[in-house]
């Protein structure tokens, strides 16, 4: 993570006077050079400005507060039609051409061909059955990146009216209710109510890849003190859950720790993010 302490400071100052501010992107930082194997894609998903700040993540007890720098996040997940544009521009990411190292056999499983998604799939429903590598490549092709786990969780703290709703009992309940519903991924994006930051679909449609999903050192079984075992993890005490009643977050971490980057899952999609240098007035 690059350090923009000054900017954070400014952003925080500005955040205090916030509400109806005008957002002006001064200079979006391009994350990195487009790899020569990727073709740039002209998909401009609308992004929401997230001023960042300090937050206490679910997974940590002793690392304390984590600083999230200001960033932009797609206001909704990437859709079938956007991903279709990507595989058309980058045929090596088509279903019949993708290398095994990048995706398992259920990659774009429901698609009818390399360049046709299922007949009953909505163009503006979130794309699923995509691996982390594919999501990462998509993000690079639009000059973005995947959000970090901390960025994603930072945005996920918000409900409709507040930045951090985690203390409200109905917040976790409502999310779990959503999590228990199947086949949500077939609905179109950005139709439900956005949260405090103007971001849609954090919980109601799909699980989402994060850039560093594999930073969760707890195992999928969660009961063992494996992460306390110095022979397995160095400096490994960073991962005990503080907020055990936040079952919704617990479930997300459970999912993240159960996947590998080449997995493709029927309800796992993604959205993109981007570093930013932004001025808010």
């Amino acid at each position, binding site marked *: 993570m690059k350090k923009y302490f000054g900017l954070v400071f400014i952003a925080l100052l500005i955040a205090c006077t916030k509400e109806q501010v005008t957002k002006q992107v001064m200079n979006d930082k391009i994350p990195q050079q487009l790899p020569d194997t990727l073709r740039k894609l002209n998909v401009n998903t609308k992004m929401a400005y997230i001023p960042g700040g300090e937050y206490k993540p679910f997974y940590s007890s002793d690392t304390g507060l984590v600083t999230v720098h200001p960033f932009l996040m797609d206001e909704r997940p990437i859709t079938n039609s956007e991903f279709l544009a990507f595989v058309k521009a980058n045929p090596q990411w088509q279903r019949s051409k993708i290398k095994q190292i990048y995706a398992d056999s259920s990659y774009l499983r429901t698609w009818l061909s390399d360049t046709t998604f299922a007949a009953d799939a909505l163009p503006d429903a979130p794309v699923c059955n995509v691996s982390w590598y594919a999501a990462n490549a998509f993000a690079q092709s639009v000059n973005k990146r995947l959000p970090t786990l901390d960025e994603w969780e930072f945005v996920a703290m918000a409900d409709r009216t507040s930045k951090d709703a985690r203390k409200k009992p109905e917040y976790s309940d409502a999310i779990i209710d959503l999590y228990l519903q199947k086949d949500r991924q077939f609905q179109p994006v950005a139709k439900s109510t956005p949260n405090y930051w103007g971001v849609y679909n954090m919980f109601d449609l799909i699980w989402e890849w994060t850039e560093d999903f594999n930073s969760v050192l707890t195992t999928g*079984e969660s009961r063992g003190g494996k992460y306390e075992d110095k022979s397995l993890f160095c400096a490994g005490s960073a991962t005990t859950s503080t907020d055990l009643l936040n079952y919704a977050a*617990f479930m997300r971490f459970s999912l993240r720790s*159960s*996947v590998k980057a080449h997995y493709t899952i029927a309800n796992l999609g993604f959205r993109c993010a981007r570093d930013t240098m932004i001025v808010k007035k």
Partner: protein
Amino acid sequence: MKLRFLTLSAIAMMTGLFACKMADNKQSGTSSDAVNIVAEGTPTVAELTAAPKVPAPVGTRAAKKLIVNLETTEIEGVIDDTIPYTFWTFNGTVPGSFIRVREGDEVTLNLKNAANSVLPHNIDLHAVTGPGGGAEATTAAPGQEASFTFKAINPGLFVYHCAAPPVPMHIGNGMYGLILVEPAGGLKPVDKEYYIMQGDFYTKASTVKKGLLEFNNDKAVAENPDYVLFNGKKGSLLGNNMIEAKVGETVRLFVGNGGPNMTSSFHVIGEIFDNVYIEGGSTVSHNIQTTMIPAGGSAIVEFKCDVPGEYVLVDHSLSRAFNKGCIGKLKVTGDANPKVFKKGGAEKQKSAY
């Protein structure tokens, strides 16, 4: 390790008293013996059954290689008359499929998580000696499969359950079942065998779908269940679903308790258990009225049906039976047995005067 210690200490304590009983059952006793049993041949797929049925006994067969295929699903089922509840299951039922193996068997467990699952799942079998009982090795994201192989070295009746976080929620939604590890030579044959598993359920109305009940975390934390049930549904052992036996038959019940929280005081009204394999282990106790089954534990109970009638199975913490649904019935048919039971007072003695 723990299992081995318990088995060893139980055996040490019971030497003498139960030595003949154990010899009866041809139990080899220590788990270290079973480690060296060779499982021969090519693997075969194990027969699995939904409650209250159990697979065929192992009998006198040698140890072998078995494949157990389980699929984790998240499905809408009925918890009470017509009230739907979102259950999470092993092989589509609550409790999950009954697994029956022999001591010394080499078991490959394939866990597939249904493609339309929302969450990852796994399995921790209490019959396994090894990290997490297999939980870590089997953690499967939606649509994924995971496997591990273990040798069944301790005979007994063991609970298995999902151990994916949050564990109480996975268990509270019905992710548990039983695996029986029969001793070499098999358990003594009986006439009827049934599979019964108790669980406590914590519910609230879904805010997304009208009429649907879902897991309620607050009630689970408070250990205040709305339902305590045999086999995951109110009335699962009542009416047409009663388990049955005939007069003169011996019945063996494999009883488990999935929890997640309640300890069961298992009792059959009007019967006395001739034999209870305490906590599903190797110690057999006799003439028991009510046996305690811990959450995540089991018991094997055996009794002979002497008198016809309907026998009520309950958790003798009776509010659970009569208010929360933990009630079932065994129907015994056949001729009356007045020597053992008859209505009416003793025949009046004729006065000597």
